[in-house]
């Protein structure tokens, strides 16, 4: 493969992942478990396809008139005392949060899990403003201690062996622990509980906003989301501009499908639907609730018919688990915040000049498993093809490879060139698949073939193509025999 290929960055990271036995086994085991969980939930649900129809329609309805839906949300949420902010990009979103932190004199922000926070790199912005950002989702905390990025949308730490987690905790607390889940989770619980009480700010994501009620909803399996959104005096929810449904009924559709698609659970341990800050006479809840609605490339996506549908995504991670590429190399190979098929689609859209993200369109076999698993039926495989077209149009990637494919495609349009080219290609195929010094020499100087030959037995193309045998088949028919 050429050193200039778009796929080179991805390839290198994928090769690195392929060499790590633990990672491969862990990712495979986890994605299989999640897929099986989802499949079980689908079987039990009975009318799962009807639910998918309903949620797909609800999400697309909201996306189709997003500006109006957001206006209703702002109006209703404001009526409950929620303060809604709009951020055009990551920098603006971070600035809003940092400014709020400054205004409160905050020193510690306790965070619930939020992929959007990863996307806008909020932790770095807070640290730069001398505000400690502490992840309180167990997986995210481990990632933070390790200085890494999540490798899965809902299971950020899927790639990490237990022993490494123990070591991280031991270093963190100067203690001695065992590899048992109970011990590790217990340590995290002890350490984090104190921090919830100390935190000035609670920062969470937003799984979905409901325009009708002006509410923000959080799904989680750890109690941390509830702690973070109720204990600190100020709660800030980060919300992707597209993460909204119109009605409570639409939200019920989401409640059915998000946990089932993500983990196979009928419902997550916690579902918080937050309507605003603490009211008079209420004992729990923050004094202020801010919602920061972040665009960061989404309105551009909204204007693009090729990719608009991907705004319907509910971030369940089902496409990651279904993807043969993701489940073989894991999330870090993608080199992005959002991995897997959904990442390969939205990451290039959020950074249109980034060639390295554009390459991810090639990190797919186009098997369509992502589309099949997607609760809102986003045609991710078609979008990956559209992205490949954009890459080809812009001359991104390996130019010579593309030129070669272009020549081949044009040759295909001329039957005798196709037939002649096919004959030559078959001869070459038989030649390199054969024994001897020359075939070995050619193999050694054709990197792609060399790589393939290391892991497979190269196919031996036939002497005669089907079209060369047609005349025989016509004679066979006239004889009334079928070659028995």
């Amino acid at each position, binding site marked *: 493969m050429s050193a200039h290929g778009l796929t080179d960055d991805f390839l290198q990271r994928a090769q690195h992942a392929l060499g790590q036995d633990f990672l491969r086994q862990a990712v495979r085991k986890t994605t299989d478990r999640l897929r099986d969980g989802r499949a079980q939930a689908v079987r039990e649900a009975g009318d799962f396809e009807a639910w998918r129809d309903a949620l797909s329609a609800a999400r697309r309805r909201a996306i189709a008139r997003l500006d109006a839906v957001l206006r209703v949300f702002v109006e209703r949420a404001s009526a409950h005392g929620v303060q809604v902010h709009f951020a055009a990009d990551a920098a603006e979103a971070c600035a809003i949060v940092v400014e709020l932190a400054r205004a409160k004199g905050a020193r510690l922000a306790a965070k619930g899990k939020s992929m959007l926070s990863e996307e806008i790199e909020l932790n770095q912005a807070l640290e730069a403003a001398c505000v400690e950002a502490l992840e309180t989702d167990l997986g995210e905390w481990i990632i933070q201690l390790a200085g890494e990025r999540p490798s899965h949308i809902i299971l950020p730490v899927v790639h990490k062996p237990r022993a490494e987690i123990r070591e991280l905790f031991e270093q963190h607390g100067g203690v001695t622990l065992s590899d048992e889940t109970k011990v590790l989770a217990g340590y995290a619980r002890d350490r984090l509980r104190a921090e919830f009480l100390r935190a000035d700010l609670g920062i969470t994501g937003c799984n979905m906003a409901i325009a009708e009620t002006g509410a923000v909803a959080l799904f989680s399996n750890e109690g941390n989301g509830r702690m973070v959104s109720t204990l600190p005096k100020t709660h800030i929810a980060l919300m992707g501009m597209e993460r909204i449904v119109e009605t409570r009924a639409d939200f019920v559709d989401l409640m059915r499908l998000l946990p089932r698609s993500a983990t196979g659970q009928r419902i997550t341990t916690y579902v918080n639907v937050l309507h605003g800050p603490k009211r008079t006479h209420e004992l729990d809840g923050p004094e202020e609730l801010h919602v920061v609605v972040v665009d960061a490339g989404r309105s551009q996506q909204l204007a693009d018919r090729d990719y608009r549908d991907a705004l319907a995504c509910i971030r369940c991670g089902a496409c990651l688990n279904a993807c043969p590429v993701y489940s073989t190399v894991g999330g870090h190979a993608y080199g992005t915040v959002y991995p897997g098929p959904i990442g390969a689609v939205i990451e290039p859209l959020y950074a249109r000049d980034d060639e390295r993200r554009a390459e991810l369109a090639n990190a797919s076999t186009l098997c369509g498993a992502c589309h099949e698993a997607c609760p809102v039926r986003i045609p991710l495989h078609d979008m990956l*093809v559209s992205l490949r077209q954009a890459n080809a149009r812009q001359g991104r990637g390996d130019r010579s490879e593309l030129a070669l494919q272009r020549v081949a*495609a044009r040759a295909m349009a001329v039957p005798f060139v196709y037939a002649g080219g096919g004959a030559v290609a078959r001869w070459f195929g038989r030649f390199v698949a054969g024994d001897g010094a020359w075939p070995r020499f050619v193999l050694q100087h054709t990197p792609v073939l060399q790589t393939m030959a290391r892991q497979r037995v190269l196919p031996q193309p*036939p002497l005669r193509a089907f079209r060369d045998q047609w005349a025989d088949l016509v004679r066979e028919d006239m004889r009334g025999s079928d070659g028995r």
Partner: protein
Amino acid sequence: MSTGSDTDVPRRRVALMVTCLVDQLAPEVGVATVRLLRRRGVQVEFPQLQTCCGQAAWNSGLAEEARALAERTIEIFEPYEAVVAPSGSCMGMLHHGYQQIFRDDEAWLRRARDLARKSFELSQYLVHEFGLSFAAVAGVDEHATQVATYHPSCHATRILGVADEPLQLLRAVRGLQLVPLPRAEDCCGFGGTFCAKLPELSSAIVETKVAHIAATGAQCVVSTDVGCLANIRSACAHRGLPVEVLHLAEVLDRHEVAKS
């Protein structure tokens, strides 16, 4: 039972879309397809101008080139009553991909849809036109039962929506014991140009597939697409797994021949 050779039964005429992969890499699959169809009384035509449906170009992002190939494919096949291809992938392109290619060109879109309406993947055509009677009477030598497993091609099932027909046919073959393939729905890692662009990754994915095939203990693995088959075959051979890797057309043809 009618074998279609009775003079009072009008002969069905179909155009064989052999696909470039079968033409160049697995002509025996084309031959088996022709024989299966003829045995059912179908008059098979082979439009000589056909080359490639344009899928490889389309999936590589070469929209213009793909469109040129799609247009000529439509022109070549639209005069026929019906079109049959021994491939779920190329049929998927014709049914689904062409809708994308011509989405802004109503005239061509209509032609593409008209063609799609009368175009079938082989197992689809066999089951819908002839049911399972042929396969049901077929059987290998009395003493041998062959254990087979089936790998559903992603494009046949997910793009074209052909899932049951190949299994129905295989189950109806006497002397063939069909065992389930674990995680059968998983991609084999072929992915067209994917296996050349990211060969290590493709190999890692097919390794998992081959492990699942080995776990079934089957003597033979069957699919509807020669892309998957070539990929699986090369990986089985590398691992030294003594499994025959066959196209559905070959399995059916072989058993029908053995029967007679």
